[in-house]
């Protein structure tokens, strides 16, 4: 029996969580455009650094050059190619955001399940905590944590970005668990001797997939914005190809914003962020349809 239900479960999971959403995205123009943009950045982050060389040598004679055939987006304060910087920087940015999203999902789902399954005092306490997380604005918190702790690598950075981000997912998971708990078949299955945790987990996963996916995207977006913001304030370890750091250098240290011809250096990372976020926003609008079947065009 368990093999059959597992196969059926996997089929259901495949259909509901992967095939259906993909079909919807394909049909929705905005979502598809978003998907393409995200794909572009994904490629940029994974393949880009291998394809486009980055010469970190400083060439002060060539600093702040406007876009030209040699340098598509100009050069930075040390004469380095901006486009190469962006491409190489994308890897860090996206990787950290990815980690942050991963951690957020792990924490959020765990907290939600604990609260929903245990109930009682555990639930109340966890909910007060979740409430605090949701109410208090996350950016100042991350700023403080970032300045107190030493953030040296991507994993720590990702963890810091995820600490205050899991509230929404926890709440959603908890409601799903609670509604599942009340369904009659849980009682029936319990009578048959199957463990509650086991059942709920199997039923829970496909039901919270939409929330998880949305949460993933939202957290990545938030993480990108926050990480760049943190770097903009100079709080993170220095690295010239980091988008936020590029903006920091441009704004605060090198005076690039005051030079009209250095504009491409200033605008490039900003444009990259905006484009990436736009892609995420468009893609997410397609996810709206996945979550709420009433919105679907068919």
């Amino acid at each position, binding site marked *: 029996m368990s093999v059959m239900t597992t196969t059926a479960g996997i089929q259901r999971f495949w259909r509901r969580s992967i095939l259906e959403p993909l079909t919807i995205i394909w049909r929705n123009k905005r979502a598809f455009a978003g998907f393409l943009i995200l794909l572009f950045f994904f490629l940029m982050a994974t393949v880009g650094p291998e394809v486009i060389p980055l010469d970190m040598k400083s060439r002060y004679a060539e600093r702040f050059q406007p876009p030209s055939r040699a340098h598509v987006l100009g050069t930075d304060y040390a004469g380095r190619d901006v486009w190469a910087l962006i491409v190489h920087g994308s890897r860090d940015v996206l990787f950290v955001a990815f980690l942050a999203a991963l951690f957020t999902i792990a924490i959020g789902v765990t907290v939600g399940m604990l609260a929903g399954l245990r109930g009682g005092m555990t639930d109340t306490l966890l909910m007060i905590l979740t409430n605090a997380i949701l109410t*208090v604005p996350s950016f*100042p*918190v991350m700023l*403080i944590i970032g*300045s107190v702790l030493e953030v040296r690598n991507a994993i720590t950075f990702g963890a810091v970005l995820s600490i205050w981000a899991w509230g929404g997912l926890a709440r959603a998971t908890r409601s799903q668990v609670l509604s599942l708990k009340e369904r009659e078949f849980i009682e029936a299955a319990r009578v048959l001797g199957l463990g509650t945790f086991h059942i709920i987990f199997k039923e829970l996963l496909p039901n919270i997939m939409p929330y998880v996916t949305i949460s993933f995207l939202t957290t990545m977006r938030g993480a990108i914005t926050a990480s760049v913001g943190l770097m903009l*304030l100079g709080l993170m370890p220095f690295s010239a190809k980091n988008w936020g750091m590029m903006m920091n250098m441009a704004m605060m240290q090198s005076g690039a914003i005051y030079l*009209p011809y250095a504009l491409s250096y200033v605008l490039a990372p900003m444009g990259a962020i*905006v484009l990436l*976020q736009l892609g995420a926003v468009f893609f997410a609008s397609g996810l709206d349809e996945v979550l709420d079947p009433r919105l679907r065009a068919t």
Partner: protein
Amino acid sequence: MITIAKRVGVALITIFLIATLTFFLVRKTPGDVMQAWAMDIVETYSMTYEDALAFVKSMYSYDPDQPVLEQYIAYISGLLRGDLGQSFIYKVSVNEVIAQALPWTVFVTSISLLLSFGIGMLLGMIIAWKRKTILDPIVTAYASFTGATPDYVTALVLLIIFSINLHIFPLKGAYDAVVPVGFTWPFIKSVLWHAALPITAYTFESAAGWALAMKGSAVSVLGEDYIMAARARGLKEGRIMTRYMGRNALLPMITGLAIALGSMVGGSVLIETIFAYPGIGWFFGEALIKRDFGMLQGLFLFLATAVIFANLAADLLYTRLDPRIKLEG
């Protein structure tokens, strides 16, 4: 009555939680920060190292060498007295910093909130009312764009275009240092001029969000039976739009507004830093960069408390405004 007490209780517990969190966070400040500071003082003021270290410790509202529990108690009792701590770099209490910075932040954020809420409400209602206008896709596109653009990007772009290149607006500060403070026109004009770009940055970001929220609320109200019944009664369209749709659609917005009011207090660290506008957010940024943990802690607690109370107020306000909801937990 009981539920009000319950909600207030939860709010207080949350604040307490945040305070505790902050306490333990700040305690984690690397010891070398304190040592570095002490060394700094030794060089600048030629104190002995022990004196310098003692001075540094006194800047924290507790003595780091004492057992944790005593420190904690000292900290909490300080909080209950309204003592938010000391700023290390400015050598004044955090309360004084807040007193100076808060008016500027509130000035800018309140005007922005007014503008973006007002514009948003109007746009949202119009879009919902007339089913197919060109406004709808425009506003939706605008909302996507501003949703994708982080606030610091907007601020930077505005700064670059309007301050640096076009020289219309000033680069920094709340007002021209040259102008004497007072209720004179030159001063007021200077203040307004300096506030223009920050206000634009805030408003630009949030107006579309309000519009879409209002649209969503209005659309769901328009689907209700009483709107159709109102039309069947031959009521004027204008009256239906305001008293029948508007009132009902606005209700859910009130909570969002109250919460936004609470967040007003903190301002945006990045926007204020970019415009060098001396509000709470700017001081927060300074505290971060200069490792002023006393001020960091105090400002953050102030921020968090404001937001938590705003949420509480929003909860209670909504129950009073909607005659249908009775305070029954």
